[in-house]
């Protein structure tokens, strides 16, 4: 596979900002790949997207597309020449143009019939058939985002950049739209970068995930890799509860509650770790036990562990138990 978009050592500090929004970031995106950038708000992921589109200029570093430099090292390609598709958080639909004209806006140098055909095709693909003459304000939230996607894909961009496209939608709509958009992106074999603060969105849509923190990349990997082997606490907690386990000799690991087991009796033939139960919480779905660990071989590093209490395990506050690793 060939590299489509490449950032090397890119940095950007906004005017008036003290910390860089993007700090020495290197990242390559391959053709046909969907990369999801996750991180807290303000972690610099949107800035990276805007840098890719040419809406911001990097302070240092190089951005290249198909090996050709588009920003940095004295080169500069303005956004209108980059052939990117950008889906803005709020859609950024042109309110004074109809749905069809919004889609046709990026199609230039084509005959009327070609434009018409392209618009029809795109609108059919995103399920907005027959919406041609409506205006954006008459569309629902989900319809708007689908229109925004159709508009950005219509000119066959080299890559698509999606900035929090689901964040203004309610949860149920979000789930279905996310599947739909992923399907469309895969169908047209788009190379895409998706920015989101929601790890579920990122894991569902992205082939690879990139965790951002304070302008730097913390970890890159498939959703499964990131879930199972987070590099540090920040990456681990993006996906929900995770326990810090320090083992003698092999350093610190982050292990999910479902990969640990709490029992009353010492497990046979295994190296169990003795713990004391600090408290039990019933969340309705299951019972969670908070335990302290003081063993000679394992250590929570001062932090308690959160474990799921299986049925039939009779443990209460203050009782002793054993933890084994699955």
């Amino acid at each position, binding site marked *: 596979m060939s590299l489509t978009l490449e950032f090397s050592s890119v940095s950007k500090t906004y005017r008036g900002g003290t910390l860089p929004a993007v700090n020495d970031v290197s990242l390559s995106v391959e053709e046909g790949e969907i990369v999801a950038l996750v991180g807290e708000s303000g972690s610099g992921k949107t800035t990276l997207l805007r840098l890719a589109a040419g809406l911001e200029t990097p302070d240092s570093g190089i951005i290249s597309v198909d090996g050709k430099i588009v920003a940095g090292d004295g080169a500069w390609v303005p*956004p*209108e020449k980059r052939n990117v598709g950008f889906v803005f958080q709020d859609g950024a639909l042109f309110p004074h143009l109809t749905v069809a004209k919004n889609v046709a806006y990026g199609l230039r140098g084509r005959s009327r019939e070609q434009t018409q055909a392209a618009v029809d095709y795109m609108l059919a693909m995103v399920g907005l058939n027959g919406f041609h003459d409506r205006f954006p304000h008459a569309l629902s939230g989900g319809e708007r985002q689908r229109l925004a996607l159709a*508009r950005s894909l219509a000119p066959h961009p080299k890559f698509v950049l999606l900035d929090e496209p689901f964040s203004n939608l309610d949860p149920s709509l979000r789930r279905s739209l996310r599947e739909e958009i992923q399907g469309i992106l895969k169908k047209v074999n788009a190379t895409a970068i998706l920015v989101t603060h929601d790890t579920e969105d990122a894991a569902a849509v992205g082939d690879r995930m990139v965790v951002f923190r304070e302008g730097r990349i913390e970890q890159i990997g498939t959703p499964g890799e990131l879930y199972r082997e987070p590099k540090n606490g920040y990456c681990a907690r993006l996906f929900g509860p995770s326990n810090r386990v320090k083992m003698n000799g092999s350093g610190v690991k982050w292990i999910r509650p479902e990969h640990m087991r709490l029992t009353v009796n010492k497990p046979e033939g295994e190296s169990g770790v003795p713990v004391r139960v600090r408290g039990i919480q019933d969340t309705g779905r299951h019972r969670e036990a908070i335990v302290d660990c003081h063993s000679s071989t394992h250590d929570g590093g001062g932090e308690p562990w959160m474990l799921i209490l299986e049925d039939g395990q009779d443990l209460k506050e203050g009782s002793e138990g054993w933890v084994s690793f699955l």
Partner: protein
Amino acid sequence: MDPWSASTLFVALLILIPLATVVIGLVQAGPKWDHLASTVLWTYVWNTVILVGTVSILSLLFALPQAWLVSAFQFPGRKFFEWALVMPLAIPTYVAAFVYFQHTEAAIPALVEIRKSFGVDAFIWSEKILRYGLLSILMAGVLSPYLYISARTSFSRQQRATIEAARTLGRGPFSVFFTVALPLARPAIVAGLSLILMEVVNDYGAVHFFGVPTLTEGIFRTWFGLGDRSSALRLAGLVMLAVLFVLLIERGQRGKARFSEFSRDQSPTSRVKLGAGGGIVAMTVCLIPLVIGLIYPLWQLIGWAVMTFDTVIRNTFREQLLHSLLLSLITAAVLTGIAVLLVYTSRLHPVRWIRGIIRFSTMGYAAPGAVIAVGVMVSFGMIDRGVKAGSGWLGLADSPFISGTIFAICFAYLVRFLTVAYQPVRAGMTRVCGNLDEASRTMGHSPAGTLFRINIPMIRGTLLAATMLVFVDILKELPLTMILRPTNFETLSTTAFGYAKEGRIHECSVPSLIIIAAGAIGLFILNRFMRHKEA
């Protein structure tokens, strides 16, 4: 540098020419300067200071109680007063002066009596007090709405909770006014007062009429009376320094004390209902400035207009009207176009130096019209002489003259009124266009293509409104137009002023009323803008 930044820089450099000329003029003393400094200069300074002082005090009386009543109390006619108290702004100071001047003449018999009974000193003093007093009252009448608007906005935005906390701590509505509302509104009050100050300093017509020579009048006298350009330029430089000084003070105090000006809680403080007695008092308090600044002048002008309408219309008036409207409209449209250029450049390049030169380019509104006019006149004269020398040397025939042309006066309007177009255009683009122009760029459209396909179509209404606002301002401008107009060139304001100066006071009512009508339209547009902003 791309064409956008380059043209923005070019506009800024053009605007810099007259302003720099004025500043450089400070170091250059004209032949009559010593004479000026030893005789009338201090009169000009003192008259300006006194007038600014009295108008400010009267404006506080005419605006603050009214603003508080309208925002904190419920009484009959409150809604009417809320917007009516803004309307005196439609009347330029010189038009109000036409109306009020007759009273100085009506007082002559009384003055004669004073002369007889108390001697010549008492006569001189009472005549002076009459003139200065009347002038201050009429100016405060038409200018106090600046203060009223800023104070009312501040009062109505004050955090409801703050006011209510004061009430629960045992303060009545009047005590709350002095202990909470007024101190919180201080930055807004100072801002309103500084606008009034600028208008007083800018005024030429009214002070000329009432024989109160301020610095602006001094510029006219030095230039046209003494024929000393350099000294007039120096005087203009001093006026500009003084205005800048006041603006810096205003900005300084605003920076330190912004308080909770723009609270997030937009729910208005519930208004206290006034009883019958209180209602009558409130209505009277609101009616006084309204009568002085709007009702009486309007009533008088309409009466005169009915008397003289036929004679005025039969004169060359229609031609002048057309002149004035056309010139104002074309200039206003060009100014709005330039404002679009500046706003769009700052969107394309949100960098410090662009912001800096735009802030500079839109500073002209602070400089009095006469100051800008003198700067344009002198700098264009120098360019003319340069061109003449150059063309003579090259053996060319008659060189073009740019001073004393329509171009010169339009350029001066640009320097003075660019900000009037710039502010609404910027607000409109920020509010309406958001990131739509960025979206357009990512879809393969150039900056220019985006401007014409997205930004301009989307803010058409705003552009029209901005053009109207500039149009109205140009229509009623007097001092700058007086200095720069080509010979035999009349606008509505110079026509009105010319009639009044010739003693044809009744005839000036027709052009005056047209100016007022245009001003009223401008106020309605501004009002709609402010509502949008608050929404």
